[in-house]
């Protein structure tokens, strides 16, 4: 098993588990955790693709950008989750569509 193959298998694992979590879970914080799984899969895919082409530095520069932006996404999402919990008293996204403040 070469390094790109191992990385792509890891990408597939994270992609499958993350997609199942997005479809099955309803808790907002849990959804943010699942999104983190998917983004880690994207980071691995970037590095694996750059390793195939022999341009690992370019791949990891893209990965650094993705990691930084993903952290901002997580922070904003968690702040939104806190506000949703304060205003509606629940983190269940399926109930938020039918609730009024």
């Amino acid at each position, binding site marked *: *098993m070469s390094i790109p193959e191992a990385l792509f298998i890891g990408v597939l694992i994270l992609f499958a*588990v993350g997609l199942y979590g997005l*479809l099955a879970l309803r808790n907002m914080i849990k959804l943010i955790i699942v999104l*983190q799984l998917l983004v880690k899969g994207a980071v691995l895919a970037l590095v694996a693709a750059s390793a195939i082409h*022999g341009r690992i530095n370019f791949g*990891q520069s893209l990965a*650094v950008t993705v990691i930084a932006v993903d952290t901002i996404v997580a*922070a904003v999402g968690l702040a939104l989750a806190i506000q949703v919990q304060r205003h509606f008293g629940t983190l269940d996204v399926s109930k938020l569509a039918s609730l009024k403040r």
Partner: protein
Amino acid sequence: MGVFIVLLVMLAACATMAVYASRLVISALWLAGVSVITALLLYEAGATVAAVLELSIGAGLVTVLLMLAISVAGDKLAPSRRVVPRRLAIGMAAAAALAAVTLVFPIPVYDPDVVEPAFGVILWEQRAADVLLQVALIFTGLLTVLGLLAETRAAAAEAQAVSPIAQMHPSLPLISDLPEAWLDASREIEAVPLPEDVLEPEPEPVLEAEPQ
């Protein structure tokens, strides 16, 4: 090769437990485990800078943020009705992964002898615009988080405006109109415990009848 198999098995276990954990804190800890294994895979692939950042930000900062949010919002997962049935979700995820396998494998072989610039040259010179945009995004996210979490004063004023006491006495000032120093002083007064003799009512004096 054996190292990769062990890491991939641990990656699958941590990711599955992060989804299936019944408590949010446990789920966040499993996510930190996924970050650590991802960092190890990146390190093995030669992406050392990305591995260090993934380890410090993914396993460190994001976990701290998750713990903070869970401590405020609560750790319990309320039972809810599934929009997508579990078997259908598993089937769709497996089908998507199978489609990705057919797209990715077999992995094409390219000429690996490519002369590549250093990481710093790529990041600061070739991708300078991306880095500037990334800095702008970080500040935007920071301001967004501050704006989302700093509305407690406005919420308190709104709650006071609809309270029965405020409706009975409309001349009372709103909390938002008070100086900040007054609010700080009131918080300090609440923090000081009252002495016991204040809490216990004083006995009423017994009046003796005057002799006639």
